[in-house]
């Protein structure tokens, strides 16, 4: 990469936004995975009061403009936000920090995992879950031994989609974490920055890198889906 150095602005390497992007998308996917699958399990279990509202709330980040999400997040975790004083006491600062970018991306990718997991869990043959119950299985065992393994492909596909989407997160991240080179500037933000400042060569390079990265994720996902087919038995 040394021969590319002249076209990069001084003090900013290509590695920084790539690593930051992977870290933010990875952590956001990790958190969303547990929250999304948990919520999907809860909603898929059957009718209860307020189910429709919970379902709509879980899917909401998918349809709201990212700027609206960013605004909500600022109201929630900003310095003067609802949880602001509490976070400050705990020594956590989410505004203009890479942790803030993780929070933003987590909320944005959550519905992708939730939706995929719910559809996958609901498509599992219920008589298998019933069979497990008559065989003495607790609800937890039914979930980890029957529902989850059989819904695994759908959940995995949703998770990979979430990771890819997390790498491209722009709006909410910009609102919450800003656009600080080397600190909160992910690939998507760096591309916008380079383009705005007329640095077309760098923008092109970053676009190419992002494309290759996303393509690799999709290919890797396909690979893993094949390997994982029988890992539950």
């Amino acid at each position, binding site marked *: 990469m040394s021969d590319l150095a002249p076209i990069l602005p001084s003090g900013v390497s290509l590695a920084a936004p790539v690593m930051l992007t992977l870290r933010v998308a990875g952590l956001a996917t990790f958190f969303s995975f547990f929250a999304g699958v948990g919520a999907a399990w809860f909603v898929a279990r059957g009718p209860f009061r307020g189910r429709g509202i919970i379902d709509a709330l879980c899917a909401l980040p998918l349809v709201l403009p990212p700027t609206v999400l960013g605004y909500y997040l600022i109201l929630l975790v900003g310095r003067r936000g609802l949880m602001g004083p509490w976070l400050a006491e705990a020594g956590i600062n989410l505004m203009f920090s890479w942790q803030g970018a993780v929070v933003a991306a987590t909320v944005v990718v959550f519905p992708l995992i939730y939706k995929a997991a719910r559809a996958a869990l609901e498509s599992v*043959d219920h*008589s*298998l879950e*019933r*069979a*497990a*119950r*008559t*065989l*003495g*299985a*607790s609800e*937890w*065992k039914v979930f*980890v*031994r*029957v529902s989850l*393994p*059989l819904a695994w492909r759908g959940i995995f596909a949703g998770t990979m989609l979430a990771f890819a989407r997390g790498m491209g997160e722009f709006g909410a991240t910009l609102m919450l974490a800003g656009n600080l080179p080397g600190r909160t500037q992910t690939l998507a933000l760096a591309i916008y920055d380079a383009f705005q400042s007329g640095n077309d060569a760098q923008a092109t390079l970053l676009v190419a890198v992002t494309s290759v990265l996303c393509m690799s994720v999709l290919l890797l996902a396909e690979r893993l889906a094949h390997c994982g087919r*029988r890992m*539950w*038995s």
Partner: protein
Amino acid sequence: MIEVRISRKLAGCGRPFTLRADFTSNARRVVLFGHSGSGKTLTLHCVAGLARPDEGVITIDGRTLFNAQADGSPRVDIPPRRRNVGYMFQDYALFPHLTVRRNVGFGMERGPWRLGREGRQRVDELLDFFEIGHVADRYPADISGGQRQRVALARALATSPSLLLLDEPFSALDPLLRRRMRDEFGSLLERCGVPALIITHDPDDVDAFAQTLVVYAEGRTLPPLDFATARSGMPSTVEMLEGLLLEGAVIPR
């Protein structure tokens, strides 16, 4: 002994349906016979705890599994995992992602994953007993229909249930195999010694298994019959069942 006295309304779309099942039997094999949609499977689900009756009582060998009556007796509703009944589903519901061995052992695992030493031993015994040892490491999709049926029965028996619930045990088999398996299945059932509640809409099954016969007509049960007595003097089981269903249709409700 099994006692079932339950009612359950299903609102659903289309016409409303009310199940009223009422029978008591000491027999080792009770057959519930009726057209599809007459409430047989719902009864089985209620006994297993997979569906909840609106009111009534279900007991097996004096143990109350469900009780919700207006007489002020304490409400009982034991969750399915503690009812200790073996349920063989119509399509067997074998776990497609687990091998035959793990399917059979599923109910004996301690915690969500581990199968203890006694568990493994019991699985081996069952695999031997049902002659499915040679397919132990295959998946349900890779074995024959008859083998699948035996795996399902072995899995249901693994937890030493006090009652077996068999939902149309032969409907998933092709007709030629069905005949052969019926004999084989009957002797397996006899040898394992667990009483069974069998539902079917096939008169041949009634012929082969019924000791006590309970006929369903439009969601209601006729008084239980001793099959041998009811059958004697009738030219065939089919005619006998037709007569009973006709009789059921005119019973005032």
